């Protein structure tokens, strides 16, 4: 009996393997038959391995291989340290609470904008975008200026001294303000895709408004909510700017500890091992997000979103939602006004008379950092964007060996905290054959590969919208694969390319967690400069720097949008975000 079933199972196994091999073999032959495609895939593949996978492997190895031998001694040392255990715990707690609270605020915004007819919708939209286009530690900086020892509200308005803003509470507020817009964008998309007619139908069936919300709207939004929470968890865990400013020594955070271990103690292996510990929860969350939540995500809600009179929310609830949204918005405005004011105030907290001194300082001493940042972001973003489009094209339209691996690896930067990447780059590129530390190249390469997923995502999204038969029609009319790509596919991808470019540019301009390990005296970044101004207590200069940074980003977005509008205003199927 058992022998028989064994035989059967073996036959089935080989039956599965053979066609698998022959299919892979066929794919290989097709690949070799198209040399251009083969070369492109080879170059992309090798560069992705070298600049994404290899640094990651270096971090992992340096955490568990000591003096060429496999050893857990560093990990053990970390685990046995009460302080570092605390840091791990704090990071997780911070991640979870920010995910919960940030998603809640994001949902409040999304639901209010999608399901009520309140005034000022455009205003709320802009409020939710601002934190995305500004450096991530602005929240922390502003909170210190408002609620710190010399804070405008604590010391100035309330006359308190000895306020404990450093630590959990202050950081949580900063993180929520920084990351709720990410949840908002996801959830707005989800709510918009749930046709209000479903809710109308449920209301017609006699459900009370609350019941309809609880039993129809919410369940349909659950995958989106889960996805938003996981993304927020990953981002908070990886965040470096806010904790560096606000966590303080009594509330250690893992990403900051890894940084201090390297820059303060010059203990690279231990810093690497710390960042490695950070990698575990964020990779777990990423894999859940990618392979589980996103599978349950695409609810096929048929029918066009008809213009339904919004009925789900009654009057009192509507104004309650409006007030909540308004309150959060006012707080966001307070945060940014504080920075703006701080940039012009002589001495924050004690002498509030206006001055241009800080801007003078920034444009004098700090001007090189501004230029460097522009050069680095200006060069890396378009390259990253093109690379993203190429990878998106390969992933969506071509079948070749290693396609799945290419997709996974190139999207990895979403999941890997910047701290890990930064440390990985130092480890990987500080000795021959590739000595890059201290150069412009290491910053460029880092930015290109770190933000390539942004381009890939928008490229994949647009390619999935482009009916493949459009490309087939071109081939059918006699175009070869190069002409089809050049005259049909590429022009259709251009809008996605630019909207991806905007995101990548913003990311590059506001990057800090990986870049802080890679800057040198020759190549500086504005974000890193702002950080060091904060550390040395020059809040005015930090604010002025931040204002200039946000100003540059806003100008860049407006210019790109304007160019796109000029060129593609009449174009069909060009979903322009932002």
């Amino acid at each position: 009996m058992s022998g028989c079933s064994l035989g059967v199972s073996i036959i089935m196994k080989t039956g599965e393997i053979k066609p698998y091999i022959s299919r892979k073999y066929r794919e290989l032959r097709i690949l070799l038959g198209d040399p251009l495609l083969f070369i492109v895939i080879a170059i992309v593949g090798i560069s992705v391995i070298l600049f994404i996978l290899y640094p990651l492997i270096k971090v992992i190895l340096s955490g568990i291989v000591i003096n060429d031998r496999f050893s857990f001694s560093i990990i053990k040392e970390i685990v046995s340290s009460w302080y570092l255990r605390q840091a791990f715990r704090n990071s997780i707690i911070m991640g979870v609470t920010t995910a919960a609270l940030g998603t809640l605020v994001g949902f409040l915004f999304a639901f209010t904008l999608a399901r009520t007819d309140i005034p000022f919708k455009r205003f709320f939209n802009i409020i939710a975008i601002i934190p995305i286009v500004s450096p991530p530690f602005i929240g922390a900086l502003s909170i210190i200026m408002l609620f710190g020892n010399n804070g405008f509200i604590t010391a100035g308005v309330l006359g308190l001294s000895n306020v404990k803003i450093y630590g959990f509470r202050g950081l949580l507020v900063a993180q929520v303000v920084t990351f709720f817009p990410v949840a908002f964008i996801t959830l707005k998309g989800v709510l918009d895709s749930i046709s209000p007619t479903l809710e109308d139908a449920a209301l017609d069936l006699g459900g009370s408004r609350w019941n309809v919300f609880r039993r129809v709207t919410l369940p349909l939004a659950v995958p989106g909510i889960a996805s938003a929470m996981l993304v927020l968890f990953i981002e908070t865990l990886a965040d470096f700017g806010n904790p560096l400013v606000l966590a303080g020594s009594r509330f250690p955070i893992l990403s900051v500890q890894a940084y201090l271990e390297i820059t303060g103690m010059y203990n690279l292996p231990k810093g690497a091992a710390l960042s490695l510990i950070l990698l575990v929860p964020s990779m777990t969350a990423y894999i859940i997000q990618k392979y589980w939540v996103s599978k349950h995500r695409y609810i096929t809600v048929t029918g066009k979103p008809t213009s339904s009179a919004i009925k789900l929310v009654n009057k009192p609830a509507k104004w309650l939602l409006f007030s909540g949204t308004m309150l959060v918005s006012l707080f966001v405005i307070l945060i940014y006004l504080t920075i703006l004011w701080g940039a012009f105030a002589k001495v924050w907290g004690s002498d509030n008379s206006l001055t241009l001194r800080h801007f003078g300082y920034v444009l004098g001493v700090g001007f090189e950092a501004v230029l460097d940042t522009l050069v680095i972001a200006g060069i890396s973003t378009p390259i990253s964007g093109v690379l993203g489009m190429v990878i998106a094209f390969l992933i969506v339209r071509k079948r070749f060996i290693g396609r799945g691996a290419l997709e996974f690896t190139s999207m990895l930067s979403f999941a890997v905290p910047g701290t890990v990447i930064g440390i990985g780059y130092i480890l990987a590129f500080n000795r021959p054959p590739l000595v890059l530390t201290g150069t412009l190249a290491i910053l460029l390469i880092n930015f290109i590969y770190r933000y390539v997923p942004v381009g890939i995502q928008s490229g994949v999204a647009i390619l999935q919208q482009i009916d493949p038969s459009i490309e087939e029609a071109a081939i059918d009319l006699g175009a070869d694969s190069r002409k089809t790509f050049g005259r049909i596919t590429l022009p259709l991808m251009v809008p996605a390319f630019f909207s991806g470019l905007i995101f990548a540019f913003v990311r590059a301009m506001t990057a800090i967690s990986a870049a802080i390990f890679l800057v040198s005296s020759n190549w500086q970044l504005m974000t890193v400069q702002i950080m060091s101004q904060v550390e040395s207590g020059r809040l005015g200069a930090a604010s002025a720097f931040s204002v200039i940074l946000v100003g540059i980003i806003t100008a860049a977005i407006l210019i790109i949008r304007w160019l796109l509008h000029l060129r593609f205003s009449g174009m069909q199927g060009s979903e322009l975000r932002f």
Partner: protein
Amino acid sequence: MSVKLQNISKFFSDPEYPDKGVAAVVDCNLDILEGEMVTLLGPSGCGKTTTLRVISGFESPTSGSVYIDNDDVTSTPPNKRDTSMVFQSYAIFPHLTVAQNIGFGLSLRKKPKNEIEKEVRDIMRMTGLEDMYNRRPDQLSGGQQQRVALARAIINKPRVLLFDEPLSNLDAKLREQMRVEIRRIQKTFGITSIYVTHDQDEAMTVSDRIVVMNEGRVQQVGTPFEIYSRPVNTFVADFIGQANFLDARVLRKSAESVDIMIGTAEKNIKSWSGNPEVGDTVKVVVRPESLRVKKSKDKNDGLNGVISTQVYLGPSVEYQIDQKKKTETFHAVTYNPVESGFFSIGDKVSVDFNSAAAHILAEG
């Protein structure tokens, strides 16, 4: 320009389960003559699109060969085959104007600008698109997009024109109008054409010959008349129009006719598929409109029953007649109730038919 398919088979492997393939097309042989319009007709999923894509070169067959004009093009890439496809989704290039769409093929061939413009204007006039020259695709109605797709395909004077359910996105009225127009344009240019549809009326209207497919296999190839009145099997008979299948036994056989026994009546049938032998039990197909319904007098003719449904449609009346004891039912349509009589539910009737209207199927 003729097209020939020789023993074409196409298997798709499911990427998740490589050992579980889908047989989309099985051993297909077809000969399409120059200037002919042939329709591939069959239910959804029977392999029509796959066959078309094998001809255009977008799918390479698992086995078999494709010939265009006696050239073996099996391994020629699609851009070198000189075929033009009109896609179900039209596949209009959204970033180009109507004129740029139509002239795309000519511009690839590096024709001078003014020649392209002239040809584009000519073809636009012929397809009723005169005023659309600089329009963008999103400013066109469904029917106009359809015309652009057609114009873009025929302007290149391809050796073969391929249509994949070109009318399925249009409303009923426009569909009827466009299929006449497609036929007209195809005849004007005399381009060999292969047309895929699952709509039998459409197939009847546009084709010189119809290829009926089911589950990847060709069932029958023939003119619309042959397909309707001489179907080879129950699938074809059932798929094209309605059919009554009557059991019969072969009594005698000669070169010109077969004598059969249906119920208690003897019939001399001149039309059959396959090779019926004396003593065989065969199926005879008779269309509803060929079935004559009479008040039943004699109970022993074997083809009688009771009217169970009656639907009055104005010009015609449809009856369903349940046979006693047997589970079978007859479907009959009468077009002239005044002459043929008018029956009500519960009436006992018998049915009869002219033996010229009957056809013996190939299968037992």
